[in-house]
């Protein structure tokens, strides 16, 4: 057993309203640069829909992820090492810019500088690749909320798989949103297809990153990732991908997409797993077993032998404690409502999803039934085959059983809590029908419905301070004592001004504690009302000091 820690995420799709706030804040933070105009580390796609890039889930075409060979081993679907090296000069299965979309801007200047004339000046769309006039025909969410209708929907690779049951009738239409980031897989096929070895999985927290100094732009990772979440920066010639906001995670903050999520649907927590078991679990023969196989590599942090092995593997005590409080563990292993996205790609993704019950409830309500009645709901989960099979294609390689179970639990929770809400006596038979106790159901309800920031994001800080201390005394500043002149790198414009200097994680927390402390030791001029000289505005006088 080789215990490793992984920062993981769960998204509750029932709560996603498709507002794209996560995408926008992510773009502002990470990809608001030239060369990555078309890149969305976080995007929200409408399902059914073609996704971004278009039809990325069609692996017959895009060749992402792994395949199991006849000998029971895994190799990248696009080919092994030798085949990849031979196609290095022109990757035959690289998405074109049109499969994402051609980035554009508008010629706003024309609105101000156009000479007076008959016609109202307009801001024409300009391609960001050529600078020439362009016609906008597609974007990262062009088919948002079923936009484009059946014509666009027919391009949905998942819908095509289940299409013999699906009739695109208006009354049977269903819609939900699927926010996607990099999956930070346990068995990342992007890393496996990188000829330079520039993509690596961080041993401490499992975040998959591209070393920008080692990437040589061979662009095999773009093909290798089945989720198409590695992008090619066409300006710098380097691959870029979602970083799980590692600078934030390292200091215990959630990713920017989670932080700004309006629906509060994201959960971040630690998962301990057995790294030695990953390769075997990813190579199980039957695709339907992959969901259970992946769950089998997760290690129970409450198990004393696991905790001991984790300590021996160098995982700090507070990380093990964080793993015990992990909401991700609860949702995946305890309540079993979270499911992986496309386990059949065999990459062991680590961003999981709670399937949406809303399409089911909506249909029930629209057909005149009580959408909250447990018996109606249980029946409907099965009867409404369209959403069920569609969800199964997304989350369990087409096996409807785990999806049905998860949806039944969510349905039971709704019905059970509704009775409590209406002041009726709690009905213990409802949780029992889905194999849960009333207490468990209550806990699950709390986690899904009212969990606070600290419960949704359980992120232990990185232990950079250890590394710093281990470097030896030479790295310490002798003036670095509390209140000493070496403290907090004061710049010419006050605390924390000046150029960015390496700040230790502990320093960040001390600074934050001090800034949010009740008793101000220094005056914040922004809060000054302009009257008098409050304490702390000037340094103490000479006579006061003695």
């Amino acid at each position, binding site marked *: 057993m080789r215990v490793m820690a992984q920062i993981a995420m769960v998204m509750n799709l029932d709560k996603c309203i498709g507002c794209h706030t996560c995408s926008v804040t992510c773009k502002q933070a990470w990809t608001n640069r030239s060369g990555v105009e078309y890149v969305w580390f976080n995007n929200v796609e409408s399902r059914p829909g073609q996704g971004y890039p278009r039809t990325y889930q069609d692996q017959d075409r895009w060749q992402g992820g792994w395949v199991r060979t006849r000998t029971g081993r895994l190799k990248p679907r696009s080919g092994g090492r030798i085949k990849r090296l031979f196609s290095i*000069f022109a990757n035959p299965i690289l998405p074109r*810019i049109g499969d994402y979309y051609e980035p554009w801007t508008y010629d706003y200047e024309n609105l101000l500088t156009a000479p007076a004339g008959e016609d109202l000046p307009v801001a024409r769309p300009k391609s960001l690749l050529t600078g020439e006039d362009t016609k906008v025909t597609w974007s990262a969410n062009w088919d948002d909320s079923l936009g484009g209708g059946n014509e666009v929907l027919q391009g949905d690779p998942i819908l095509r798989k289940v299409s013999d049951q699906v009739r695109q009738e208006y009354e049977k239409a269903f819609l939900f949103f699927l926010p996607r980031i990099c999956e930070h897989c346990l068995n990342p096929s992007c890393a496996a297809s990188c000829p330079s070895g520039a993509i690596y999985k961080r041993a401490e927290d499992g975040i998959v990153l591209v070393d*920008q100094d080692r990437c040589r732009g061979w662009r095999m990772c773009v093909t290798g990732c089945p989720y198409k979440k590695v992008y090619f920066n*066409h300006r710098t*010639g380097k691959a870029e991908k979602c970083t799980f906001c590692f600078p934030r995670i390292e200091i215990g903050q959630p990713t920017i997409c989670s932080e700004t999520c309006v629906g509060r649907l994201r959960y971040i927590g630690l998962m301990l797993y057995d790294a030695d078991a990953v390769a075997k679990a990813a190579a199980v023969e039957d695709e339907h077993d992959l969901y259970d196989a992946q769950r089998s590599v997760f290690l129970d942090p409450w198990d004393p032998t696991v905790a001991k092995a984790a300590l021996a593997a160098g995982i700090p005590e507070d990380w093990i404690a964080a793993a015990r409080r992990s909401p991700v563990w609860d949702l995946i292993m305890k309540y079993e409502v979270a499911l992986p996205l496309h386990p059949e790609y065999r990459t062991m993704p680590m961003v999981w999803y709670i399937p949406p019950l809303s399409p089911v409830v909506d249909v029930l309500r629209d057909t005149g039934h009580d959408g909250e009645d447990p018996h109606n709901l249980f029946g409907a989960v099965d009867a409404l085959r369209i959403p069920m099979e569609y969800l199964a294609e997304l989350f369990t390689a087409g096996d409807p059983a785990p999806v049905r179970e998860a949806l039944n639990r969510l349905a039971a929770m709704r019905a059970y809590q509704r009775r409590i809400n209406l002041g009726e006596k709690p009905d213990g038979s409802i949780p029992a029908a889905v194999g849960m106790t009333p207490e468990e159901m209550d806990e699950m309800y709390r986690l899904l419905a009212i969990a606070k920031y600290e419960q949704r994001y359980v992120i232990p800080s990185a232990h950079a301070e250890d590394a710093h201390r281990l470097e030896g005394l030479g790295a310490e500043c002798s003036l670095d004592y509390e209140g000493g002149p070496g403290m907090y790198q004061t710049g010419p414009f006050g605390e924390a001004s000046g150029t960015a200097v*390496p700040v*230790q994680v502990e320093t960040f927390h001390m600074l934050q504690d001090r800034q949010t402390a009740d008793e101000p030791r220094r005056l914040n001029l922004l809060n000054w009302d302009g009257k008098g000289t409050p304490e702390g505005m000037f340094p103490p006088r000479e006579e006061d000091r003695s």
Partner: protein
Amino acid sequence: MNTFLWVVFPYLSIVVLAGGTVWRYRYDKFGWTTRSSQLYETNYLRWGSPLFHFGVLFVLIGHIVGLLIPKSWTEAVGITEHLYHLMAVFIGTVAGLCTLIGMAILILRRRLTGPVFAATTRNDKTMYVVLGSVILLGLWATVKANITGGGYDYRETVSPWLRSLFTLQPDVALMTAVPAGFKIHIIAAFVLFACWPFTRLVHAFSAPVGYLTRPYVVYRYRDPHGGLRPTRPGWEPPR
């Protein structure tokens, strides 16, 4: 003049190549990339690029065999001058033509595809001129020698001279009787070597042969310097 062309200049070029590569690797790892333009355009690239690159790899192998392996060695294993010449001309011409056609496709593509041309820097254009002339001059010298005569046996002159450079006992006399075509080709090649580290051609030095022996998934530990990192090249702050 001869001493400059066949001693000073080659050494200067090699020093610039080695020094420049070390400098570039130390200070511009971020810029060390193929700068692939495949995202913009695939249809022409998928023909042009493999033709050019595989062609140029064969040309490289041909040059190594012809220049670095002494004639006496090949004759010792029974390859006569005539046989060698036939092989060299045949493989060399095919590889050279592949390179030339591939390069023509790539340059036309670069000029005619809007986004690709927009992403072409002045450095790239200069590099294309130098690289293109080296290839053209080499082909021209070979073809001319084979059409006018029975071919030129550079293994008697150019090859020993090049090897004498590496043994640090340069023999200028060997180069005096070499036909002008070959001479110009050699000079152009050394100009190319001197430019090499400062162009996108550096990607040739990072040919990913290590991929063949590496485990598929790479694990790495966080670099020990925690907290905020200094701003990295290529990073534009959020606007």
